[in-house]
């Protein structure tokens, strides 16, 4: 079985991402988040909690740093001249960045899992297999964005006492203790959209799939879609800001173009584009 397999497919097995990988991608899910539109309202974070059965760990554990928020709203006070140290109106001068798993195409978290519980799907998503994870936490250490979260306790009893457990999303599991988890670009929604499209005999169209955060955002700051579909909204945003996948450094014709990817110099090739806030000079 295996020896013949290896010899026949040798060149296929030896292709890394620089040689185009060996996937034929059917979709490449990506996101674009406009930080100018983001108000920091946290609705996306709450939606993520609701959609993905995230446990609320409680104040004490959150203070200890054991939270489980797949989408976190980061606040930076980087503009003091706009009132950054104002105690009463703290939002003034604050920048908000909602960050979730960047679904890196060259993800540093993937090769280091000892049991292969995380891998890259033909959809361009970084998948986490909860059943396979033994909780060695190497992937979390290797994620430069620190976007992987760990179940430090078993939250089922405390987070959803009766009748709150009735609000759990049946499309996705509740994770055991000792398991790593992270944003999946609402893969359950992606799968069900693909199933619907297949049933109806058509391809998935732009707008069929919306992640919970994109759906909830009141200012439509989060745009989600298929980057292989050149007509999708997200592709247009990426193209408009001249950011391409597969490059660690973008060549932009216009310095004023706001699009950037976080820590892209580390060669992780993330799938999330951020549009920088328009700042007063």
């Amino acid at each position, binding site marked *: *079985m*295996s*020896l013949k*397999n*290896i010899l026949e*497919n*040798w060149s*296929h*097995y*030896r*292709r*890394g*991402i*620089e040689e185009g*990988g*060996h*996937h034929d991608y059917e979709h490449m899910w990506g996101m674009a988040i406009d930080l100018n539109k983001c108000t920091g309202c946290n609705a996306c974070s709450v939606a993520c909690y609701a959609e993905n059965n995230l446990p609320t760990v409680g104040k004490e554990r959150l203070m200890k740093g054991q939270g489980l928020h797949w989408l976190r709203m980061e606040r930076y006070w980087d503009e003091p001249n706009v009132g950054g140290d104002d105690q009463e109106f703290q939002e003034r001068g604050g920048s908000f960045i909602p960050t979730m798993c960047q679904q890196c*195409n*060259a*993800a*540093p*978290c*993937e*090769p280091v899992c000892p049991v*292969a519980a*995380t*891998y*890259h799907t*033909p959809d361009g998503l970084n998948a986490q297999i909860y059943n396979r994870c033994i909780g060695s936490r190497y992937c979390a250490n290797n994620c430069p964005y620190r976007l992987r979260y760990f179940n430090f306790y078993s939250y089922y009893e405390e987070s959803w006492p009766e009748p709150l457990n009735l609000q759990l999303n049946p499309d996705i599991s509740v994770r055991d203790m000792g398991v790593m988890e992270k944003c999946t670009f609402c893969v359950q929604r992606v799968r069900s959209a693909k199933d619907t499209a297949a049933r109806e005999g058509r391809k998935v169209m732009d707008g069929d799939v919306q992640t919970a955060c994109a759906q909830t955002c009141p200012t439509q700051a989060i745009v989600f879609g298929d980057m292989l579909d050149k007509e999708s909204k997200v592709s247009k945003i990426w193209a408009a800001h001249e950011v391409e996948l597969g490059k660690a450094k973008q060549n932009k014709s216009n310095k004023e173009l706001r699009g950037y990817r976080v820590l892209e110099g580390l060669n992780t*090739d993330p799938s999330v584009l951020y549009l920088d806030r328009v700042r007063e000079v």
Partner: protein
Amino acid sequence: MKRYYVMGLFSNFEEAFATIHDIREHTIPGVSVDDVTLKSPIEHPEIEEILGDRGSPIPKFSLYGAIFGAIFGFLFLASAQATFLVQPQGGKPVIALPSNIVLSYEMMILFGVLSTVVGFMISARLMTKRHPLYSEKVSLDQVGVMLELDEKNVNPVKELFKKHKVVEIREEVSQ
């Protein structure tokens, strides 16, 4: 045909070596140095000068074991990785050479060590019944020279032993 075993215990290496030297010089006809087994409490590499180089097959076991380990290791890993086309990871190819080299190296050493140990057990003839002429004094501080002989050579050999100040002589007959 009866085989006689005679063992002389000496209190130091010099006397034992002198005895063997005499046997080597064919002092007693019909008894050659190949019939001699030397029992000693320590490793003493100079034994080989006296007894002649009798060789040891262990390095061959090590070599073949290590080569097998390296090849088997790489093939095993590559075939395990090859079953999973679905799992490209981190932008790296499915059969990644750097990580496979590390693991093949470890397998090479593991199999080299195991085959060396097996070779040792076989060539040193361990785990067989102890020869009845075994003396506990050998593990203490005496050196034994044991000869496998025909009946007619027993007495000349005993005389040779006594000439070299043997401390104790034991003999045994096997059918």
